[in-house]
């Protein structure tokens, strides 16, 4: 045991078990617990307007999706340009129930946690199927295979009458122990649901990487032949990475369907797949905390650009094009600048801050 349970200036592990702890020091755990409780408590004391609550919920849903994308692209090194389609599978699972049973059937209003799980499962199954080409393909070819899955998904949804040909299939409001969730509580309620899901899934991933199944992913990414020699099955591992990522995406999609009270194809297009990738990259590929930074950064950037555009539009009304062209422009610029100057993403800044505070006031 290290002498001080609260502070550690470096890595003093003696046993393997110590290395496996989630929190290295008690201070870490304390800070994390405070932070987490703050996340749970603040809506009670401080009320945000609905649009902002919606933005926050969007960030949380994107966090769930990007956690999944990070599993497959960051940890397992398989590029997926079809992540929004997996999210769509989750959302459309919920929507299908709603379509068959009616949008305020008991199953939807009361059994919604089960439906979220069903969304995740459907995502996982599709993920495993789409992951099959990864048995043979790598790198760019795999990326293009996932791209074609995205296209086929969009076509199927837009073509089939069952899916309302891509138009919104509405999903009713849900009920909780406190009664029906009305319009005013809707966003706060789903904030909590998403938050709980993130905590569960986040710890899930954290623990996964303590087991052989998680480490196999990284091993396959770094060198699949070596991993093969170590007794892992690279092909199976890749399919399983896709399935796992599909599960996260499916859960995100199901929550999305409930939050927006419906599913429509416009929320699951190629553009969204690219946005998820951008979030993962800006946050930091292959890191768990990056999956939190990325969505927050991109969503807030979008919001700020929008605000700035409106502000600019007040002064140059006839040049509205200038103001609105800013959004794609800054989005692209942020991706490119991060890749050129900080390929490890915001997670790397976080690491620097952490190591700085750890040794403060000394520097190395």
């Amino acid at each position: 045991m290290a002498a001080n349970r609260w502070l550690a200036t470096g890595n003093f592990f003696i046993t393997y078990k110590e290395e496996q702890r989630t929190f290295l020091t008690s201070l870490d755990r304390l800070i994390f617990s405070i932070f987490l409780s703050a996340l749970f408590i603040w809506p009670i004391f401080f009320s945000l307007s609905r649009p902002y609550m919606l933005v926050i919920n969007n960030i949380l849903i994107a966090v769930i999706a990007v956690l999944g994308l990070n599993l497959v692209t960051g940890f397992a090194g398989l590029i997926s340009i079809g992540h929004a389609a997996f999210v769509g599978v989750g959302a459309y699972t919920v929507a299908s129930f709603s379509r068959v049973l009616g949008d305020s059937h008991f199953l939807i209003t009361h059994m919604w946690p089960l439906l979220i799980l069903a969304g995740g499962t459907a995502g996982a199954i599709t993920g495993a199927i789409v992951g099959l080409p990864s048995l043979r393909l790598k790198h760019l070819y795999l990326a293009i295979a996932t791209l074609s899955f995205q296209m086929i998904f969009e076509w199927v949804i837009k073509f089939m009458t069952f899916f309302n040909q891509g138009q919104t299939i509405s999903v009713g409001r849900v009920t909780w122990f406190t009664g029906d969730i009305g319009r005013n509580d809707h966003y706060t309620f789903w904030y909590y649901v998403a938050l709980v899901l993130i905590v569960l899934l986040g710890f899930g991933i954290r623990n996964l990487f303590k087991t052989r199944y998680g480490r196999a992913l990284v091993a396959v990414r770094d060198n699949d032949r070596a991993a093969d020699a170590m007794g892992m099955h690279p092909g199976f591992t890749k399919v399983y990475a896709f399935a796992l990522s599909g599960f996260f995406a499916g859960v995100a999609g199901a929550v999305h369907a409930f939050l927006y009270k419906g599913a429509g194809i416009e929320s699951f297009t190629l553009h969204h797949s690219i946005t998820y990738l951008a979030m993962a990259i800006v946050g930091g590929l292959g890191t768990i905390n990056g999956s939190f930074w990325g969505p927050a950064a991109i969503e807030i950037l979008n919001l700020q650009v929008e605000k700035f555009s409106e502000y600019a539009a007040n002064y140059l009304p006839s040049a509205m094009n200038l103001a609105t062209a800013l959004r794609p422009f800054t989005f692209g610029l942020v991706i490119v600048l991060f890749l050129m100057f900080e390929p490890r993403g915001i997670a790397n800044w976080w690491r620097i801050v952490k190591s700085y505070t750890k040794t403060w006031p000394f520097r190395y």
Partner: protein
Amino acid sequence: MSYFFQIVVSGVVVGSIYALAALGLVLVYKSSRVANFAHGQIIASGAFITYALTVWASIPIYISFFISMLITFLLAWSVERIFLRRLIGEPIISVIMVTIGLASILDGLIYLTPFGTKNFSFPLFLPAEPISIYGVSISWTQLVGVIITVVLIGGFSWFFKKSTVGISMRAVSDDQFASMSVGISVPSVFGLAWATAGLSAAAAGGIIGNITGLNFDTLHAFGVVVFPVVILGGLDSILGAVVAGIIMGLIQQFAGGYLDGNFGLNGTGEVLPYIILLIILLIKPHGLFGIHEIERV
């Protein structure tokens, strides 16, 4: 029977335009192993520059077509110089994402111009009357498009086979270290590859713009549409792009001509290329003419 032949002719015409659009992707991939997701935007800018020169600066279209090729040549070259040169040796995901980011930046820039939100069409400069042989007809625009495609593709093939620069580009695609050791400047080869890709994109843009009219949404979609084509042909083969382009054109036209509206199906021409793409990826990932270098897992 003329129905059948008309479909064949249309398929070949559409296919050769696909081939021209795909050419840019192949050129970049061939030398630098980068898939360019911003290709659609470069095609669109090529079309818009041609239009701006022809209509706003009143330059005859024959000349403005070449000037716009020159401009996109420089544009693509500077894109490579500014953004992609730093990323040589970075993981493939970074490179893919940089080109996606570039696509978004170009989107933003195009929205600054009237082309982002308005529709235009090229003035007629060819006879409007189609050429008709035995009930099979082809418009002058399409014919000229095919001729330009053939000339450009022939030119590029010659360039890669015979010219010193072309051979050095092939050398780089084969083995970067070996080519460096014999004195080839790898970065300048990359720059040149992008520049020639830009040039072919402008040509493709000009032709597509003449056929569909200038609508930004329609034009930049071609950047994605050609992916099935290049995969089918093999990402690094010019000949592959031509053959696959024509096959894809034929498949789409035949799907439109015989499948659609018959079995309760519709819009199959849209999705078939991607289904074929998935099948090819599973069976023959290096495409018809690509180099067998895919690593098996």
